[in-house]
């Protein structure tokens, strides 16, 4: 179909990159924000603006907290669709397993658990007889954080970057996976297309015509951060491999089941409950023992992840994992105890090479380690990815602006409008949810849902605006939507900072003075964003002023001039 390899790669790069680029933009942009998801959470939920806490005492604080945990309405609804009959009231469902997870950046603790249900599944092979409950708690007092409060960083931006909040049939995950694969394809095909990878590694010529300088920027941001782009797209796919290739739940289920039994025998951690009730020994004492063992290994640490299975059963066990502040892997060095007696059942050996590689790859993407410099470098990498994708769109449009006629003019208008929507429009929507977060009444029922709606609606309005203003593109001009939305970004970013000040009293002088970086950092970032957008808007204004609408005569002239300029 194609004359040669390079042509095939160019076609794939252009068209797959264009179509999936819009999704990739969201993945990269919200991924970059997710680097500081916990900090954005603090900004969005002011009652959680206190220092990070260690895992609290299980016996004193957590155990009473778990007594109040109930199955989440969302999972009740989801489970009701795949079982027979009505699920009993959440108050009557017994908690059978539980977890708690924290990192060095978490003031609030994420907890959750599984509740057993008596209902038969509709699909006989479905052996998941549980509903899930989850919540965030204040580990100092054990009080629950209202589920109406949306932790915008970790509950909205973070899932946005891998699921697009499109949960029907998990379709969002699949679309992002396709985009991830296309990112890898675009990187390889881009390298093939780029004839002077090393000679032009440092090349950026902003003073040349738009098409040239945009391509320079596209190549620069793509090539210098190539390892970052490659490994983040690749590890993103690896992290959700279980969703994309559900072999163990389908074709290889017998083998996976056999493995579970063998694994339980090998590790001594029971896979099934014994069916007889048993009391629970002190978990705090188990934590002390786990910490003692980490000390002995020369790697003292805090508890990152706590898991208990078969609660109240004689086969119950407790797993305690060390927080991975100082390593790329999330958690590790698990020590497992018999719940009824507190005796050590097993201490995890160092991971095998395969698991170590996997932990490194997933850990480098999920980044729960303590390394602020690397975090900021990741933001740079992520934003470089955004610039790379955005300049790809602009190049696509610029290259075709001159051969505009009927059919292709419509395509160009759409591509340009979608580019506006996924660049400035996405920033506007992101800022809109933050402003909404500060302006909606504190006790509004389903407050988080309203914040999400405002995000989606403002994004939709930006799309409509971009399409409405795209007529200029058909005459070879810059769409004014770019500039107008940039000004909107300035307005919203500054208001978000102001409303945070008015609503919470935590203005920049105070937060900087207290060294409270989560809120100071978000505010500073918002102001920086406003500054960049203002500069962009001014440059766009100047460029719009320089341009002449395209007519056959002066387009020829323009070409000649460009040739003359080299």
């Amino acid at each position, binding site marked *: 179909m194609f004359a040669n390899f390079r042509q095939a790669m160019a076609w794939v790069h252009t068209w797959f990159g264009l179509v999936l680029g819009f999704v990739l933009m969201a993945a990269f942009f919200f991924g970059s924000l997710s680097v500081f998801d916990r900090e954005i959470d603090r900004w969005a939920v002011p009652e959680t603006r206190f220092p990070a806490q260690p895992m609290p005492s299980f016996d004193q604080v957590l155990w009473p907290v778990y007594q109040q945990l109930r199955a989440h309405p969302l999972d009740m609804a989801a489970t009701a669709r795949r079982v027979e009959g009505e699920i009993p009231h959440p108050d009557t469902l017994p908690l059978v397993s539980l977890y708690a997870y924290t990192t060095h950046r978490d003031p609030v603790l994420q907890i959750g658990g599984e509740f057993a249900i008596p209902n038969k599944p509709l699909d006989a092979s479905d052996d998941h007889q549980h509903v899930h409950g989850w919540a965030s708690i204040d580990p100092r007092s054990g009080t629950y954080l209202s589920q109406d409060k949306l932790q915008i960083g970790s509950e909205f931006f973070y899932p946005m970057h891998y699921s697009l909040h499109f949960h029907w049939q998990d379709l969002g995950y699949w679309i992002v996976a396709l985009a991830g694969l296309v990112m890898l394809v675009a990187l390889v095909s881009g390298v093939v297309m780029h004839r002077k990878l090393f*000679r032009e*590694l*440092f*090349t*950026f*010529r*902003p003073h040349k015509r738009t098409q040239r300088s945009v391509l320079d920027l596209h190549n*620069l*941001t793509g090539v*210098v*951060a190539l*390892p*970052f782009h490659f490994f983040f797209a690749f590890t993103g796919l690896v992290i959700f491999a279980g969703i994309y290739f559900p072999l163990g739940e389908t074709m290889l289920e017998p083998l996976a089941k056999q493995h579970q039994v063998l694994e339980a025998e090998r590790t001594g951690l029971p896979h099934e409950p014994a069916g007889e009730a048993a009391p629970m020994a002190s978990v705090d004492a188990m934590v002390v023992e786990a910490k003692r063992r980490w000390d002995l290994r020369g790697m003292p640490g805090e508890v990152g992840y706590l898991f208990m299975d078969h609660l109240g059963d004689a086969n119950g066990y407790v797993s305690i994992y060390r927080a991975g502040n*100082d*390593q*790329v892997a999330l958690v590790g060095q698990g020590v497992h105890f018999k719940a009824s007696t507190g005796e050590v059942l097993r201490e995890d050996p160092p991971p095998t090479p395969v698991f170590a590689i996997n932990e*490194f790859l997933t850990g*480098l993407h999920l980044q729960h*380690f303590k*390394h602020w*410099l*690397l975090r900021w*470098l*990741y933001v*740079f*990498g992520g934003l*470089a990815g955004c610039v790379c994708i955005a300049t790809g769109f602009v190049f696509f449009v610029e290259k075709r602006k001159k051969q505009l006629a009927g059919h292709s003019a419509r395509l160009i208008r759409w591509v340009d409008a979608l580019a506006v929507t996924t660049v400035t429009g996405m920033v506007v929507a992101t800022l809109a949810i933050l402003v909404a977060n500060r302006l909606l009444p504190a006790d509004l029922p389903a407050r988080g849902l309203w914040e999400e709606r405002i995000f989606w609606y403002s994004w939709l309005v930006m799309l409509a605006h971009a399409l409405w203003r795209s007529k200029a593109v058909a005459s070879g001009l810059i769409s004014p939507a770019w500039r107008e939305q940039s000004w909107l970004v300035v307005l919203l970013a500054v208001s978000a900072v102001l409303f945070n000040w008015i609503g919470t009293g935590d203005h920049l002088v105070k937060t900087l003075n207290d060294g409270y970086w989560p809120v100071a950092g978000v505010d500073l970032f918002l102001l920086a964003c406003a500054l960049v957008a203002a500069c962009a808007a001014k440059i766009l204004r100047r460029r719009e002023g320089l341009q002449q609408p395209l007519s056959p005569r002066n387009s020829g002239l323009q070409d000649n001039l460009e040739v003359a300029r080299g």
Partner: protein
Amino acid sequence: MGDVVLLLLAALSCHSGAVWLALAIRAHWRQVTGESAPDAATVRMLRILGAAALLVGLVLCLWADAPSMAVLVWIMYLALFAFITAFTLAWRPQVLKLWLPGFRPRSPLS
């Protein structure tokens, strides 16, 4: 706090490495010095210096953090400083003369 110093030194080293490697490219040499092209010995020298500086940067990263983390920091440093170097070349190329101490432009006749 020692880590901060090491990571700063690593940054400086990686930045220098990127600049020297860029200067070994004819177009950038011209941007910075105004001369048409560096001679072969200079190119070799710049490449060796550049590679060595990047290597020193890696060693400093390894000194500051656990190896798995250090590699990540180093790779991101390379990206960042290549990017910064490209932008400096685009707008303030003469700043990069700092990395050519003792450089004297050849007379136009030679």
